[in-house]
């Protein structure tokens, strides 16, 4: 009997051990493209969980739910999305979300940018006709071939302990292998600030980081207005100061999520990780960025003083839920000064305004009467497919500044630079102060 028990025990062990050592499958969504043009189909495959719903968008505003078929015997579902028979334009960007059972529809629109909400989503960005439609590369995951981790990392002889045991002494060298004009391993070419694909080549929203620049985020530098990290020098030659190489949040441009103490939309007190939510809207003829939320919080991790909503104590407009005051006083280094507001509702009145500058949170909703001084809506519909800018639309840092570099003219003295009265074009989007006139048109 004892022998029998031993044999049975060993038998159980034999069965259980291999099962216990089977590697858990990662929470992965596979995506690929079949066909092209009007016959293009995007395929998605993932392990289905009860309550999963699939949505597609091109701009972050209009989401279309896609029917999910029954799972196979292993629990996987495979979707074929042909865009209602229309196919997909080469070069266009398509965004999918798999929303799990905990996702609440009330989060749609402008209230989705917190880490808690993001945790209920699996996001897949598909670049149609790009050769590799999803990020099945360094920015996605190498589950299919983990040997390729060794392309950039090594476990025992890294060149830099702070840089995740990279084989290179600089992460920038890794990034430049694909993201520069001469080497074209991606459509995002940062040296010249170009987005290049198919028949289209457009200037990127971030601008050039090294070519023909008059100012850029580069070198080791203190950030003007950095009250959070006094005296700290940031390595702006390191791409991973701002970006993640392997994004867990699938943020826009793989920007890092940041700790924020205010709601990314209303500016009200709030503590959470805030992802940058934006969509590179691309119909195959160009790429325009639809900023949804989080971009100014990202900048303010270093340039906190310029984030006016942080210290904004002005009265809240009950209609908009946003601070009423247009400008605000900041305290920094014992000095008080006024700053042009960002992340505040543009509840201006009077004639309709137009601008070519990027505004956060534009939506396709009916506009109010721009000539009615009591109506806080106003319209700026230039250069963005007639999108209406509403009272919840806000200026952000990137409305006036690029994030990589600029080629514009018109240096100005900086009162915040490392050297007093040093001159710079300060990453501006237009020559001199063209941005003022682009909105205010005096």
């Amino acid at each position, binding site marked *: 009997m004892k022998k029998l028990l031993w044999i049975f025990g060993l038998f159980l062990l034999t069965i259980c051990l291999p099962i216990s050592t089977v590697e858990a499958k990662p929470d992965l969504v596979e995506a690929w493209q079949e066909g092209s043009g009007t016959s293009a189909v995007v395929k998605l495959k993932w392990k289905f969980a009860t309550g999963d719903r699939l949505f597609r968008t091109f701009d972050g505003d209009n989401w279309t739910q896609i029917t999910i078929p029954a799972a196979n015997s292993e629990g996987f579902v495979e979707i074929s999305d042909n865009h209602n028979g229309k196919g997909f334009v080469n070069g266009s960007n398509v965004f999918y979300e798999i929303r799990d059972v905990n996702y609440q529809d009330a989060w749609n629109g402008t209230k989705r940018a917190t880490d808690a909400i993001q945790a209920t989503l699996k996001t897949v960005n598909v670049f149609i006709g*790009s*050769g*590799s439609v999803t990020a099945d590369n360094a920015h996605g995951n190498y589950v299919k071939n983990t040997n390729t981790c060794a*392309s950039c990392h090594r476990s025992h002889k890294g*060149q830099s302990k702070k840089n995740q045991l990279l084989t290179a002494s600089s992460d920038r060298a890794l990034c430049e292998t694909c993201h520069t004009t001469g*080497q074209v*391993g991606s459509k995002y*070419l940062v040296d010249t600030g170009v987005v290049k694909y198919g028949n289209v*080549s457009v200037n990127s929203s971030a601008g050039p980081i090294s070519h023909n620049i008059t100012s850029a985020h580069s070198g080791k530098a203190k950030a003007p207005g950095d009250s959070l990290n006094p005296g700290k020098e940031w390595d702006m030659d390191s791409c991973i100061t701002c970006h993640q190489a392997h994004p867990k949040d699938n943020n826009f441009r793989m920007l890092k999520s940041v700790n924020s103490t205010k709601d990314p939309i209303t500016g009200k007190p709030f503590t959470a990780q805030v992802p940058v939510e934006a969509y590179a809207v691309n119909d195959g003829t160009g790429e325009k960025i639809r900023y949804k939320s989080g971009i100014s919080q990202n900048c303010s991790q270093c340039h906190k003083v310029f984030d006016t909503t942080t210290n904004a104590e002005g009265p809240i407009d009950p209609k908009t839920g946003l601070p009423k005051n247009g400008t605000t006083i900041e305290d920094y280094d014992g000095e008080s000064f006024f700053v042009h507001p960002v992340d505040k509702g543009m509840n201006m009145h009077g004639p309709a305004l137009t601008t070519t500058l990027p505004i956060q949170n534009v939506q396709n909703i009916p506009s109010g009467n721009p000539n009615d001084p009591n109506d806080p809506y106003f319209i700026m519909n230039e250069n963005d497919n007639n999108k209406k800018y509403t009272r919840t639309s806000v200026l952000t840092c990137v409305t006036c500044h690029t994030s990589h570099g600029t080629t514009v003219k018109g240096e100005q003295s900086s009162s915040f630079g490392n050297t007093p009265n040093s001159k710079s074009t300060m990453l501006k989007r237009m020559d001199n102060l063209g941005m003022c006139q682009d909105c205010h048109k005096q």
Partner: protein
Amino acid sequence: MKLKNLLIILGTITISITVFFISLYVQKLSIFDRMPVFAISREITSVDVLFSFGNAEGEDQQLKQPIAIAVDSEGKAYVLDSFHRDIKVYDPNGTFLFAFGKGGEDLLIAPGAIAIHNGLVLVSEPTIGRIQAFSTNGEFVRTLFASSKTEKYSPVGMAGLDDHLLFADAARHQLVKINLDGEVIATYGSPGPKEGQFAYPQYITIDQNERIYVSDSNNGRVQVFDEEGKYLQTIDGTIGEKEKMALPRGIAIDRYHRLIVVDTLANQLRFFELTGEPLFEYGEHGEDDGQLSFPNGVATFGNKVYIADRENNRIQVFSIGN
């Protein structure tokens, strides 16, 4: 009975040999490609560092981030300096001679790759969508190819095929064949990971049997085509439980009919039979002689292999035998 057996054996041998040669013909291979055991070069399982140039202290016109190289029939090396956006020319000993492409008519805006064909130095500009032709003295000759307003291409690596030129198009993920008037004759491939498809193809080389090798960079492989663009095979380095290539870029064929592939992210040179059989790998990351830091382009001349060692800001020259 014995005669019958003999006839069967002879017949079998004849059929086997016939099938063997038919397979060679179909695959556009020579008998030596299939019988590497007879090639003395197969005993060479490494390379030796000869010298490097372009980054010596005090050297005039130092290289910064060289990404491509071509060597002419006299052994002069034409190096694409991606940071300075010009072409620097060196004699066979690595002594700087002159540079071109920096201004005036021959201005290069955003050069990506370089090749020599029919006595012309060809420089591709992927984001401009054109190929500029220079003499070997660096004089601008003409724009060999330019994208139209409606049909834009991103030419990277180029290779001459008779009176045509092939280039890898990184925008549309295809191979493009043009005549020497710059007219597109044919295109091969489409975006994707399947056979005959590409993801950011980069460099091209052609063997003596006019088989076309394309580094299909973001798919981590080299694809082989016949001269009509028909897909023949894939070389990804995985035969014999070896690792798949991470990011193949520069490719060339050496004097011993071996395919050399520069795996940029692995900081390695990988040597293959033209059949795709892996031979050996060379290199590791570093800045010492023989080490590499993001190597990119490759060229061969005689028994020398030239590597554009990008982040070491130099060209390294290796010996591949006598």
